C-alpha cells in the first residue's frame, strides 16, 4: 500500500476552530496548518488549551465550530487509515497483560504495522517485554505509550507531554528516537511546557495561550518577536541616564551602580548609538533571550493587552 501523501499536501489543518467546556473557552478561533516533515512544538502554560487542541486533532472530541482536517479527511478516518500515531498524557494502558502483549495488540490493530520486535527495541522496552504493564515505573510506562504510538507506519505522530516522568538521560534517549522518526519524513507534533525541548527539537513553535495562537514561527523568530536581545555593559564616571533612555529600539532599561542592562529589538543599531554618544562601554555583552524569557514576554504582553 502506497498511500503516502504528496510532499506538498497539508498534514493537519484547523480552520477557525473553537471549543468550550461550559463557560470555559478552551480553544478560541484557532487556525493553523502543519506541513509534511515538520517537527512542531505546541508550547503553552498549563490550561493554555494544548491537550484540547490535540483531542480535537485526534477526533477524541468534536469541535463546537470550525473544521479540523487531517490528511484532507476527518481525524477519525485518518486514524482508521493508520496514518496517525498518538501518545496521550491521559492515555491509560491495558492492565494484567505484558508489555509484549500490549505492543502486539497495537501492531495487530494497525493498518500498516511494523514487526513487534522492532517496535519494542526502538522504544527501548525489549528488556522489559515480559513484565506486566501495571508493574512499570512512570518512565517505562511512557516508553510503552511511545511504542503504541509508533506501532505502525504513521505519517503523523502526535505526542502530549511525552517526556513527563522521565529523567534527563531517558529524555535525551527519547528525543533521539523521535528525531529518527522525523528524519524519515514523518510529521511530528508535540505539546510541551519544557521550553528547552521546543527550542532544541522543533523546527517550528506554536505558542498557545488561553486557547489562542499567540505566535507561530521558528524558535529564533519567537525570540525575536518577544523583543529581543539583551545588552549589558559597564560605564565609568557619571552615567547620563536621560541620554541612555533615548537610545533607539529599547524595550527595557535598567541601571544598577555602573552596570547598564537594556533590551533592544535591534541590538546592532542600539550598540552603534551607544558609541555615537561618545561613550566607551566596558565588558559589553550582547545575548539573545532564551525561549523561556521570550515566552514569558509574549504571554505577559498578551495579558497586559487583555487587562
Amino acid at each position: 500500500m502506497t498511500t503516502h501523501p504528496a510532499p506538498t499536501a497539508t498534514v493537519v489543518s484547523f480552520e477557525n476552530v473553537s471549543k468550550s467546556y461550559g463557560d470555559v473557552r478552551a480553544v478560541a478561533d484557532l487556525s493553523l496548518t502543519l506541513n509534511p516533515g515538520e517537527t512542531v512544538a505546541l508550547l503553552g502554560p498549563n490550561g493554555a488549551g494544548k491537550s484540547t487542541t490535540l483531542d480535537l486533532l485526534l477526533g477524541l472530541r468534536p469541535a463546537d465550530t470550525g473544521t479540523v482536517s487531517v490528511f484532507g479527511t476527518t481525524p477519525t478516518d485518518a486514524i482508521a487509515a493508520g496514518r496517525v500515531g498518538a501518545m496521550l498524557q491521559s492515555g491509560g494502558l491495558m492492565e494484567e497483560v505484558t508489555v509484549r502483549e500490549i505492543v502486539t495488540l497495537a501492531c495487530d490493530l494497525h493498518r500498516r504495522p511494523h514487526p513487534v520486535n522492532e517496535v519494542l527495541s526502538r522504544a527501548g522496552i525489549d528488556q522489559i517485554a515480559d513484565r506486566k504493564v501495571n508493574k512499570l515505573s512512570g518512565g517505562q510506562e511512557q516508553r510503552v505509550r511511545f511504542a503504541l504510538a509508533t506501532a505502525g507506519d504513521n505519517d503523523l505522530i502526535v505526542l502530549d507531554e511525552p517526556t513527563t516522568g522521565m529523567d534527563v538521560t531517558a529524555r535525551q534517549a527519547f528525543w533521539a528516537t523521535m528525531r529518527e522518526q522525523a528524519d524519515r519524513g514523518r510529521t511530528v507534533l508535540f505539546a510541551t511546557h519544557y521550553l528547552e525541548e521546543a527550542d532544541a527539537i522543533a523546527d517550528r513553535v506554536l505558542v498557545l495561550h488561553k486557547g489562542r495562537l499567540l505566535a507561530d514561527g521558528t524558535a529564533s523568530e519567537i525570540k525575536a518577536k518577544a523583543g529581543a536581545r539583551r545588552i549589558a555593559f559597564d560605564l565609568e564616571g557619571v552615567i547620563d541616564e536621560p541620554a541612555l533612555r533615548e537610545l533607539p529600539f529599547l524595550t527595557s532599561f535598567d541601571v544598577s551602580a555602573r552596570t547598564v542592562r537594556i533590551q533592544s529589538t535591534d541590538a546592532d543599531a542600539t550598540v552603534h548609538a551607544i558609541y555615537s554618544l561618545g561613550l566607551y562601554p566596558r565588558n559589553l555583552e550582547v545575548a539573545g533571550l532564551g525561549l523561556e524569557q521570550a515566552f514569558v514576554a509574549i504571554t505577559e504582553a498578551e495579558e497586559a493587552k487583555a487587562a
Partner: protein
Amino acid sequence: MTTLIRLEILRTLRNRKFMFFSILYPSILYLIIASGASSTDKVPGTSLTLQNFYVVAMASFGALTAVLMGNSERIAKEREKGWVRQLRLTSLPGRGYVLAKIASGAVVTLPCIVVVFIVSAVAKNVRFDAWQWLALTGVIWAGSLVFAALGVAIGYIASGDAVRPITMIIYFGLSILGGLWMPTTVFPDWLQTVSTWLPTHAYAALGQAVEMGNAPHSKDVAILFAYFLLFSGGAAYLYRKDTLKA
C-alpha cells in the same frame, strides 16, 4: 482484532480472584435458595418441579451476575484510566471492542453454569437427560452474551462511583422481574405481562423450555436477539462517542 479478543480472554483468566468468586457465587446461592425447595411440588401452571426450576434460574442468574457486574465495572474503570482513549486512536471499530468484551464474558459464564449443574446433580440429585444438560448449557451460555453486551453498555453510560449503584438497580430489577428469583406466575397479571418482554424472562424461559423437554420458544429467542442487537449496538456507538476525560 483477534489479538484484542485473545488478550481480553487471557486477562479474565488471569484475574484469579474474579474467576474464583464468579464461579462459586451461583453455586452457593443455588444451595442456599434451593435447599428448601421441594423436588415434588410444581411451579404453578407448569409441569416443572421447584427444585429443577431453581437449577436453571440460578445457573442463569449466576452467569448474568458475572458478566453484568464484571463488564460494567471493569469498563468504567478502563475509561477512567484512559485505556479506551488510547484504543480509540487505533483503527479498531466499535464492534471489535464490544465483541472482545463479550468474548471475555463468555469465558466466565461457561464454568459458572457447568459448576451449578454439577453441584445440583451431586448435592440435590437433580436429573435430566444427557441432551437436556447439553442443551441447557448451550442456551444459558448463549443467552448470557446478551447481558455481557448490557454490561458493556452500562460501563459506558455510567462512570466513577455511579457504576455500581446503576448496575445493581438494573441487575436486581431485571433478575426479580424476569423471574430468576421466583417463578413469575406468583406476580399479579399486569406485572406478568411486563415481565414477558424483559430479556431476563426470555433468558429463563429458554432453559425452562428445555427442562420440560421442548425446544425454546421462538418468541423468547427473538426477544433475546433483539436485546443483544440493542445492547451491543448501543455499546459500540457509545465507545465511538465517548468523550470522558481522565
